[in-house]
């Protein structure tokens, strides 16, 4: 029998958690996108979703490596990605929600959910990277300066699709509206400032989440206008993935993502 890798415990100080939140959001979003690999509704979108996932994995890798340097126990990107337990993973809850239904009875949405989530996320990330490009930490500024170009292209592509579906047939518009109803309550967490944000902002690492809201809403509303979608009202629901408290879907996605490294510790391609 092979050994099973034991979980690592990250020393949580605010700058480390701040970077992990962004890294984990990119990583888990990418993991959901690649579930479409080989299943896209058309070949072009199959390629688009996996290409976007590739960019997001690249961004996550750079940030995880940086978080490892900040954290100080010498963890590398692979250990941080594959050996943390759920409570030490800090992505936005939105990105762990199932996207593609693997069967009729499986949880998840449809292609409209995917298009919409991509758009909401890429718009959020673009705002984040734009501000982080002026980070007081040279490494973060460099990662962000590169990532912002990628996020911009993702936002354009996903935004094109939001318009295409929203301004398409009655069926596509209805599906997009349903997807928006499902996604919207989770967007609250994207702009919820907490102590970690405040420390990061004061140190000049990057923006606090609430600073991203005005631009995000303006850009989202502009595309929604073209798509014939209304911006929903705010809801009181507040998800807590960025605190390490996740939805029921998180354990499954981590199990799938981590199982190989857990069973074959240090395994490499």
């Amino acid at each position, binding site marked *: 029998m092979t050994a099973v890798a034991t979980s690592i415990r990250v020393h949580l100080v605010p700058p480390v958690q701040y970077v992990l939140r962004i890294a984990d959001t990119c990583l888990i979003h990418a993991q959901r996108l690649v579930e479409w690999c080989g299943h896209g509704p058309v070949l072009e979108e199959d390629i688009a979703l996996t290409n976007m996932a*590739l*960019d997001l994995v690249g961004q996550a890798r750079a940030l995880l490596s940086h978080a490892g340097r900040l954290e100080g126990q010498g963890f590398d990107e692979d250990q941080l990605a594959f050996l943390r337990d759920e409570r030490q993973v800090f992505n936005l809850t939105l990105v762990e929600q199932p996207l593609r239904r693997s069967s009729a009875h499986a949880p998840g949405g449809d292609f409209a959910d995917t298009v919409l989530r991509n758009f909401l996320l890429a718009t959020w990330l673009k705002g984040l990277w734009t501000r982080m490009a002026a980070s007081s930490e040279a490494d973060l500024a460099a990662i962000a300066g590169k990532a912002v170009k990628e996020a911009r292209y993702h936002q354009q592509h996903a935004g094109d699709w939001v318009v295409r579906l929203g301004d398409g047939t009655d069926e596509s518009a209805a599906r997009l509206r349903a997807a928006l109803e499902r996604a919207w309550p989770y967007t609250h967490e994207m702009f919820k400032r907490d102590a970690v944000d405040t420390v990061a902002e004061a140190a000049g690492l990057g923006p606090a989440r609430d600073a991203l809201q005005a631009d995000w809403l303006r850009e989202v509303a502009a595309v929604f206008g073209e798509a014939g979608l209304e911006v929903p009202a705010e809801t009181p629901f507040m998800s807590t993935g960025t605190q390490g408290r996740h939805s029921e879907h998180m354990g499954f996605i981590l199990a799938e993502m981590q199982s190989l490294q857990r069973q074959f510790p240090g395994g490499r391609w």
Partner: protein
Amino acid sequence: MTIATTAPSRIDAAWTALDAVPDPEVPVLSVRDLGIVREVLEHGDGPIEVVLTPTYSGCPATEVIAESVREAVVAAGLGPVKVTQRLAPAWTTDWISPEGRAKLLAYGIAPPSGSAAVAGDRKVRIRPPGVACPRCGSADTERLSAFGSTACKALHRCLACREPFEYFKPI
């Protein structure tokens, strides 16, 4: 750098060696054409240092390129080599050399149009502005797919000669 010698300096020889290192995903381009070699440095009698910048955050060719660069410098007899990665300033397609752009075109890939550095945001729309067909030169083209066979390309089609072609996306 400016010391006059009859033999080429190690740095010049390293640059020449890098001319022969292809991008594994667009092999018609060398890593120099692509503009990803930012600097070649000499540390006394120590290793030659080659500074590379990645094209995309998740470009899967990054590791292969670093390895090929290492091999090429060693094969040129220039001694030990150290490859370092530099993220900032971020790579832009504006750094593809004029020779590189000509090679792309001859290979059937439309080079990036305009200047990426000033392109920035555009209004969301389904069809980007026309890209000239690398085969017949017509600007009457359309985009088939925003993403292509590698992170750096999109797929287009010429409406004049009907040929599909790849487009190197400006970033």
